[in-house]
C-alpha cells in the first residue's frame, strides 16, 4: 500500500493541486483530518454561542397582575387567564377551600393546551397523554420533558395577584 496516491518527484503542492480531475476528487487523509478538525471547531463555536447567550440573557421581568378574586371559582374549579403577556395562557385551579395553584397552560412537550382533570386531580395534555401533578406541575407520565412553569400567586385583600413565573428543569 502506498502512502502517496500519485508518487512523483514533484513538489507537494503539485500533488495536492493536481491538474488531473481524478486526482482533484481524491480526498487525502490529511484533507479529511482537516475537515474533521473544522467540524470540531464548529462544535466548539456552537458551545461558545450557547454560553454567550446564557451569559447575556436578561432576566425576564414579571409585572404584578390581578388574575382572580378569592372565591371567584369553586373548589376544584378552573379559571383561564393570561400572564405575563396576553399570549401566555395560564390555568388556575382552586385545589382546596383556601388553596390556589396556577401553571402555564402550554404543555412542555409540543405546546398543546393542558386542562384540569378533576376526576384524576391532575393536569392532562390531550395530545400525547402527558400528565402533570396539580401540586407542583411535575411530570407524572408521558413525553413532556419538563414540569409546567408555575405562576406564583399572592393574596392581596380579596384578590389573587400573579407575581412571577417559576420555570423548573426536570429532576
Amino acid at each position, binding site marked *: *500500500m*502506498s*502512502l*502517496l496516491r500519485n*508518487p512523483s518527484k514533484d513538489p*507537494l503542492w503539485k500533488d495536492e493541486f493536481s491538474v488531473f480531475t481524478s486526482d482533484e476528487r481524491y480526498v*487525502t*487523509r*490529511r484533507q*479529511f*483530518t*482537516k475537515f*474533521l*478538525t473544522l*467540524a*470540531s*471547531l464548529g*462544535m*466548539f463555536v*456552537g*458551545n*461558545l454561542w*450557547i*454560553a454567550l*447567550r*446564557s*451569559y447575556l*440573557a436578561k432576566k425576564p421581568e414579571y409585572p404584578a397582575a390581578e388574575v382572580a378574586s378569592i372565591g371567584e371559582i369553586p373548589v376544584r374549579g378552573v379559571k383561564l387567564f393570561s400572564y405575563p403577556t396576553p399570549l401566555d395562557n395560564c390555568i388556575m385551579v382552586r385545589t382546596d377551600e383556601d388553596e390556589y395553584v396556577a401553571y402555564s397552560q402550554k404543555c412542555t412537550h409540543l405546546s398543546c393546551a393542558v386542562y384540569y382533570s378533576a376526576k384524576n386531580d391532575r393536569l392532562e395534555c390531550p395530545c400525547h397523554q402527558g400528565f402533570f401533578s396539580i401540586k407542583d406541575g411535575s411530570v407524572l407520565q408521558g413525553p413532556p*420533558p*419538563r414540569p409546567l412553569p408555575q405562576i406564583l400567586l399572592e393574596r392581596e385583600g380579596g384578590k389573587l395577584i400573579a407575581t412571577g413565573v417559576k*420555570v*423548573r*428543569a*426536570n429532576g
Partner: protein
Amino acid sequence: MASSEPTKRRGLVAIDGAMALIVILLVVQIWLLSATLEAYLAGHHGAVVPAAVFSGLLFAACASLNTFVDRVDRDSRRN
C-alpha cells in the same frame, strides 16, 4: 528520494490511529453540544460554561492531532 516501505507503513498506521481518535473526539463533541443545548433550553444554565470549556479542550486535542497527522504525512512523503 523514494521513501522506504516500513517508514510509509508506520506513518500510515499513525495517521489512521490519529484519525480514529479525532472521529471519537468529534462524536463526543457532537453529543456534548446536543446535551448542552437541551440543558440550556431546559433552564439549566449552570452547565453551559463547563461544557464550552470541555468542548474547547476537545477541539484543542483535535487540532493537535491534526498537526500531528500533517507532520507525519509530510515526513513520510519526504523521507
